[in-house]
């Protein structure tokens, strides 16, 4: 379509600043194709239907506009013009009957100062050339003003005091008074500008807290004054979705956090949950208390040992599949339920908070719309050299020292021929020769190794920049009978090691309005996930005892793959010349190609629902959801993989009669496959009650649901597998086979496993809310859950959870006359939620593990020990909050305080295991309280040309153990392990950082010194053993951050916006790694603290790193690695992302509603780091070396039509 445009608005002052409206009224002709399941052809014309061609008109001195209006109605042709042109037109007198529009037009315009052009079905009215100042041709004018299609309308909106209203909405109403999609909002000074407003249309101007008004569109609407109306606040009616009901946030008493699609999309994580922690007030990703994977915590911990993962709901029901299946582009909004009133409706699994994901849904009476978004991201290679390590040369010196001390003698003589490093091989060779030439060669080789760093090889051969892409097409449309939306998405996530995940998603949601009282919902959501493994990364290649020497080489100078020792000595393997044996060496550069893990899974969610208005105030709904996930993971190790060759060789046996080698494990590949299947059925019946009179409003829910979730998996392993023709060979798993090298015997692991689990739940629930005069509200909710847990009577299986709440909207009171505070609500709730863990049972239960290879009979292990005292954990939460809006919405937010009291919490506690239980068992051991504050604030800092808005989350969370039933003072249980287990000490935090008291280093030999009974001592075993008490330890503080949150800013100028977000964590401790000489000697694991070690007398004044001694001082590492100097503060500020976006101004002929381009940089690193060691506290896993995630650059294009 083309427009011939003549538009001119002489003498109209331009607003100083305006924003393009992203929504634009256009004539849309669409032809869309969605390959999998939809083919749609759709055609729409805004002005009229396309059939009428003939017109009849009888007018006497009618105004030109009224004539045009009549013609438009009859013909279906659209008129495009600037009303100013019609000012000089003469009244029209005409009498035509059934004339073609094209014949009628010359009659209409005869003798008028304007002319017209017709293009397709659009009639553009233009002034006759002589009336234009400067006498330019219409074509020339067009070239200068390509965008202006319809006249512009501009104006300003102020309140009764003359203050500009910022962000007031201005909507265009059509001739029938219905809202069109054309709308805008006022800028920082109250001005607005709309383009393409057809003549005669009205503008609907509204602003929160003010009485809206309609004005007739004109080039200059002038200043519109809105009167304030304190009792009308419908504009901010944000709906929160609890998974059971949609309720206006205004009426809620509980604690909800809403995150909209826009903000979610400022991040690029493949898994939508990963985007939440830094956006959500009160949520934190802890990577300190639990190992590397981390845990998502909502308002800190509410349990000591129980599960801390929040419950995830997708479209009204718990999502049982892998959340990674969900396409983030399909998510419309996220609601996080933080307190008991919000979460108690979810009962037994809600103690850790609930995350409710809502997928996109169409609304009725909506024209077809299409959204397309595409994201491409590139991740840098990791900075391996940021790791603080002992370099190759010094490692070689250490090994030489060990060699000279006979450390390797036992290893060299061992019949199992364990691996020794290339250096040790050289040293052995050197010891066996007297030939000076050979000695020289060996020394040259050692010197060459000194200069190597395996990290170079890793970066060169293993790491590539990571790549991620995600494309999604979304369609939506609705009539008054049927609304539907559909999306198709495809994503690829290939990390820096080539591990690749492919995800395809298809979603359809629909709603049928069968009658005024009956609605039916239906939908499905299918995702296909495929992933395959890539190259081994740093830390994945282990020569021996989980270590790799730093001078390892993956390729020679020509790039040919070199073997790296694995399990057995290379020099020994070279003596195995039997041609029947397979090559026994491991080639890192080749091996991953022959050792592939692949996974496929399909997740399907089917939903159906029915909503029936029984009475005006009573609604019945029935929902059913079915989820299933099928997965197949395979590990194929072809005969070319080390694993397969090693297994074949390992059991090779020489037949004493024939002298031939026999292979109990046949030569061939190995295929391990696991099939798993998950199914979940959810049925819910619910009555919703809603009754309202002038002053009273009652809302209630009563329902019941049944859930059943089952999971099965099955693994097996094929030997002698040939992927070419799917053959395999059976092997004898029933007897032991002799190891070829050591002569020992062992069973061949079968790789067979079977599991089947099922969880059933029946629940009933009710909730209600009463509101008086729209300002006082009281709410309650109650729920009972029953499940098929073991060892409980049916009565005990039912668990009640409940909550009550109240709120008061002060700003609605008559006495409220604050010009500062527009809105103020206070609210309070109290309630209880539970924590349920099916693995904790009060009876002796056994678990069938498999077949005992020794006697071929099934065997079972005790899973739980009889403990009649076991009870459920309960967590009761009190929440107090205020919601506010200040300075005409320039500052909006909420401030909440909460108190969580956990009772009968499970704790792992050491017991006298003479009783026969495990040394550490899980019992109800403690009570705790958690207290905190969550502040969330949105501010508009500047209006005008440069708009700056901020979003701030500040959370404070502190917890402490209030009661610990079992006194355990043993120091080791407060300190041992790579992470800090929960510590049961009253009035101390739940997760604590303790360390051994440090007395420095011995000035004589640099040995670490501690305290034994107050005296400086080296009796490490005494003060780290069972005799040591927690009172001997140094208490540092908690290991979860006390203060945390994020700070996001958005700067907008014209169509550009920059947003960036920082996250921060303050006031917590972590234990950092240091050199451990036993790991240095045994596994080449050299922490860079090696260089700061004590080396001579006097060093003890400047360092805390003990001297290197061989053999290691017995018990010393259990002491110093856990002593004071290695506990650091974790406080830091991290720059999470920067997002540049540009909303491309749209030309009408593009037929687009929106075209946004954004460029995003993620993982920008630390802006502030408190600890002196320079360790990233979130990625400093104590037991392994941590690397901060590398920077990701991404480009996103979003387009809507």
């Amino acid at each position, binding site marked *: 379509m083309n427009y011939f445009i003549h538009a001119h608005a002489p003498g109209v002052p331009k607003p100083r600043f305006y924003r393009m409206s992203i929504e634009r009224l256009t004539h849309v002709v669409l032809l869309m194709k969605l390959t999998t399941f939809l083919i749609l052809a759709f055609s729409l014309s805004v002005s009229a239907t396309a059939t009428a061609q003939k017109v009849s008109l009888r007018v006497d001195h009618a105004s030109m506009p009224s004539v045009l209006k009549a013609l438009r109605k009859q013909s279906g042709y659209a008129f495009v013009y600037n009303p100013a042109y019609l000012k000089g037109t003469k009244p029209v007198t005409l009498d035509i009957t059934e004339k073609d529009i094209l014949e009628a037009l010359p009659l209409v315009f005869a003798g008028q100062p304007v002319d017209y052009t017709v293009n397709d079905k659009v009639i553009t009215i233009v002034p006759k050339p002589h009336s234009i100042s400067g006498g330019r041709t219409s074509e020339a004018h067009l070239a200068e003003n390509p965008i202006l299609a319809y006249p512009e309308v501009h104006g300003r909106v102020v309140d009764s005091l003359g203050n500009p209203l910022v962000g007031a909405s201005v909507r265009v109403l059509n001739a029938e008074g219905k809202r069109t999609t054309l709308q805008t909002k006022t800028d920082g000074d109250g001005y607005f500008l709309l383009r393409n407003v057809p003549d005669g249309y009205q503008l609907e101007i509204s602003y929160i807290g003010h009485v809206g008004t309609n004005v007739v569109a004109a080039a200059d609407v002038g200043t519109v004054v809105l009167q304030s109306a304190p009792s009308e606040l419908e504009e901010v009616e944000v709906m929160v979705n609890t998974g059971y009901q949609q309720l206006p946030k205004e009426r809620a008493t509980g604690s909800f956090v809403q995150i909209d699609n826009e903000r979610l999309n400022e991040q690029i994580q493949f898994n939508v949950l990963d985007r939440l922690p830094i956006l959500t007030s009160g949520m934190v990703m802890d990577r300190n208390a639990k190992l590397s994977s981390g845990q998502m915590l909502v308002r800190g911990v509410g349990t000591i040992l129980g599960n801390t993962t929040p419950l995830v709901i997708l479209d009204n029901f718990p999502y049982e599949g892998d959340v990674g299946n969900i396409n983030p582009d399909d998510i419309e909004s996220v609601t996080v339920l933080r307190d008991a009133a919000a979460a108690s409706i979810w009962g037994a699994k809600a103690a850790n908070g609930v995350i409710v994901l809502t997928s996109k849904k169409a609304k009725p009476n909506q024209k077809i719309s299409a959204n397309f978004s595409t994201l491409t991201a590139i991740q840098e290679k990791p900075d391996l050299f940021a790791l603080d390590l002992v370099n190759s040369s010094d490692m070689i010196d250490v090994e030489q020292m060990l060699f000279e001390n006979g450390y390797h003698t036992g290893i060299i003589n061992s019949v199992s021929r364990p691996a020794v490093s290339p250096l040790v091989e050289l040293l052995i060779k050197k010891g066996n020769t007297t030939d000076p030439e050979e000695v020289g060669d060996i020394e040259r080789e050692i010197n060459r190794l000194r200069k190597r760093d395996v990290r170079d090889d890793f970066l060169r051969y293993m790491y590539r920049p990571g790549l991620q892409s995600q494309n999604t097409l979304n369609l939506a449309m609705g009539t008054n009978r049927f609304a539907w939306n559909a999306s198709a998405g495809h994503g690829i996530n290939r990390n820096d090691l080539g591990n690749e995940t492919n995800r395809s998603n298809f979603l359809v949601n629909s709603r049928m309005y069968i009658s005024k009282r009956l609605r039916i919902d239906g939908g499905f959501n299918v995702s296909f996930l495929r992933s395959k493994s890539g190259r081994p990364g740093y830390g994945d290649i282990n020569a021996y005892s989980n270590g790799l020497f730093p001078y390892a080489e993956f390729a020679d100078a020509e790039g040919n793959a070199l073997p790296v020792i694995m399990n057995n000595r290379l020099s020994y393997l070279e003596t195995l010349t039997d041609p029947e044996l397979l090559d026994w060496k491991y080639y890192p550069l080749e091996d991953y190609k022959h050792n592939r893990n692949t996974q496929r899974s399909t997740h399907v969610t089917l939903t159906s629902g029915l909503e029936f208005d029984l009475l005006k105030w009573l609604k019945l709904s029935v929902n059913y959801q079915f989820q299933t996930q099928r997965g197949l993971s395979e590990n194929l190790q072809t005969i070319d993989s080390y694993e397969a060759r090693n297994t074949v060789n390992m059991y090779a046996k020489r037949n004493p009669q024939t002298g031939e080698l026999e292979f109990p494990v046949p030569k061939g590949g190995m295929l391990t496959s696991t099939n798993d299947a998950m199914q979940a059925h959810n049925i819910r019946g619910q009555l919703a009650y809603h009754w309202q009179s002038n002053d009273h409003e009652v809302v209630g829910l009563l329902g019941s649901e049944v859930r059943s979730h089952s999971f099965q998996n099955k693994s097996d392993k094929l030997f002698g597998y040939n992927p070419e023709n799917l053959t395999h060979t059976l092997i004898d798993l029933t007897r032991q086979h002799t190891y070829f090298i050591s002569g020992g015997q062992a069973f061949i692991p079968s790789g067979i496993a079977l*599991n089947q689990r099922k969880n059933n739940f029946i629940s009933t629930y009710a909730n209600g809310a009463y509101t008086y005069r729209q300002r006082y509200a009281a709410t309650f909710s109650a729920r009972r859950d029953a499940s098929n847990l073991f060892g409980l009577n049916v009565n005990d299986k039912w668990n009640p959870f409940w909550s009550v709440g109240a709120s008061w909207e002060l700003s609605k009171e008559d006495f409220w006359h604050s010009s500062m505070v527009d809105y103020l609500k206070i609210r309070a709730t109290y309630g209880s939620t539970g924590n349920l863990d099916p693995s904790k049972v009060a009876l002796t239960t056994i678990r069938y593990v498999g077949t005992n290879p020794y006697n071929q009979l099934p065997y079972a292990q005790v899973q739980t020990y*009889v403990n009649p005292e076991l009870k459920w954990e309960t967590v009761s939460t009190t929440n107090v909050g205020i919601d506010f809006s200040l300075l005409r919405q320039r500052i909006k937010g909420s401030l909440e305080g909460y108190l969580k009291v956990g009772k009968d919490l499970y704790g792992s506690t*050491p017991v006298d295991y003479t*009783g026969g239980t495990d040394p550490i068992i899980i019992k109800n051991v403690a009570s705790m309280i958690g207290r905190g504050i969550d502040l969330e604030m949105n501010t508009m800092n500047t209006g005008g040309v440069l708009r700056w808005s901020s979003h701030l989350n500040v959370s404070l969370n502190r917890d402490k153990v209030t009661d610990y039933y079992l006194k355990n003072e043993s120091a080791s249980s407060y300190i041992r392990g790579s992470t800090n287990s929960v510590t049961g000490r009253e009035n101390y935090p739940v997760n604590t950082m303790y360390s051994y008291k440090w007395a420095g280093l011995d000035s004589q030999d640099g040995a670490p010194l501690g305290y034994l009974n107050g005296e400086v001592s080296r009796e490490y075993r005494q003060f780290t053993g069972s005799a040591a008490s927690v009172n001997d330890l140094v208490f540092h503080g908690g290991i979860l951050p006390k203060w945390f949150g994020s700070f996001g800013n958005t700067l907008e100028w014209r169509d550009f916006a920059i947003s960036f977000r920082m996250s921060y964590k303050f006031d917590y401790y972590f234990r950092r790694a240091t050199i451990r000489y036993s790991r240095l000697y045994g596994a080449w694991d050299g922490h860079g603290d090696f260089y700061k070690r004590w080396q001579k007398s006097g060093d003890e004044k400047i360092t805390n790193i003990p001297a290197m001694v061989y053999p290691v001082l017995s018990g010393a590492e259990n002491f110093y690695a856990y002593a004071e100097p290695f506990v650091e503060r974790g406080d830091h500020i991290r720059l999470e992302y920067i997002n540049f976006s540009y909303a491309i101004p749209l030309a009408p002929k593009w037929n687009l509603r929106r075209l946004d381009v954004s460029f995003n940089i993620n993982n920008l690193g630390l802006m502030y780091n408190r600890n002196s060691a320079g360790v990233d506290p979130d990625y400093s896993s104590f037991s392994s070396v941590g690397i901060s995630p590398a920077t990701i650059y991404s480009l996103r294009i979003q387009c809507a039509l």
Partner: protein
Amino acid sequence: MRTKYKFLLVTFLPLLVSCEKFLDQKPDQKLTIPTTLEDLEAMTNDLIFWGGIDAAAISSDDYTISDANYDGVSSDSHRRMYTWEPYDIFDEGSTSSPWYRTYNAIYLANSVEETIIKIGRNAANASKYDNVRGRALFFRGSKLFRASLVWCEAYDVDQSASQLGMPIKLDTDFNKRSFRSTLQQTYDQITKDLEAAVKLLPRTAASLYNPSQLAAYAELARVYLYMGNYEKSYAYADTLLGLKSDLMDHAEIDNTPTYPLPSLNEEVIYVLSIGTPQILNLTRSLVATDLVDSYEAGDLRKILYFSANTDGSHGFRGGRYQGGSSLFIGLATDETYLIRAESALRTGRKQQAIQDINTLLASRWEKVDGISAYKPIVDMVDSDLLAKILLERRKSLLYRGVRWYDLKRLNRDGANITLRRTVKGKEYVLPPNDPRYAIAIPGDIVKMSEVEQNPR
């Protein structure tokens, strides 16, 4: 209206019916509350994986290790056993702790005892019932016995009522406080359980990893030998050898494999192992020189048990009766022959003693023209014969954990053996009847219960 309520009823009714059944489904198909004999049998099958206690083998004087290898031993606990430290020997709070393994096995046995009574014995299940119950009692008695050898002094019949025994656990209530019984009570319980097991267990088990009546006889012979009740040890050893008297003809064993003794060979009665403690492995531990030198020419044990190192020292490659490199500390007929020989001599059955020692050694000697080159003992002074039997015991049963107990009981009877070890120039001495023969009980147990630490 009425139809509406009916509709409601139809909607909600399915939710209310068969609720009970729905909630009684198993959450984990593999998880079971043990109720059947099959469940109990499966529990006893798990005990097969539980090894024995390695402290005795490591503390014994069967071997020494070099300073370099001592430094290279990764287990601090093993190094401390080697030098007979008075305290802090075992890893605490760990599932690898032998204290845990002992009492966890006893817990399993008690679970079986408690449950099997509810099942009840009838004609249909009698043989399985007896077998499972017999296994439970065997485990309880045997685990308690082997624990007492580590943590208690040698049983002394005159003082046993005042000697410290082991805590005795006869039910599954782990909340009960633990305390030490007297050694007499401990041995009463051991013999009671094992003697009951004898009556319940089948003569032989389907697998040598499962207890059988033969195993119970062999274990009882051992128990009474340590108690100094030679009449009974003779009786049990004699009963056993009446039922099973197989011996491996060492002359027919191929000595080329690394571990030449066939696994699960004909001498094995019941398998129990201690893994391969690094400190005892083939290349680190060196067999005590006096012991190596004591083998006579023609004795094949010297060839089959030892691997000669280039420096003249010897590693131990025998005793791997269950395959792999794990050391065997279970029950076998060679030990029973030695028990019968010793008990026979001590109860005045000298001819039996001589015959037993001859039978055993004949199977250990090389053959000339198909006939054992061993020269049988015809007669000997009693004291010499006893010394000979005890020496053969040492030479046959080294690295089987037996030596430590023998040291305890022989010193109790006045053998006056002092152990000495030198590690990096420092000499460690263990005089006869030293309190350290009763190894320290894990410190956390002493702390958390009323279990008394051994006198130090």
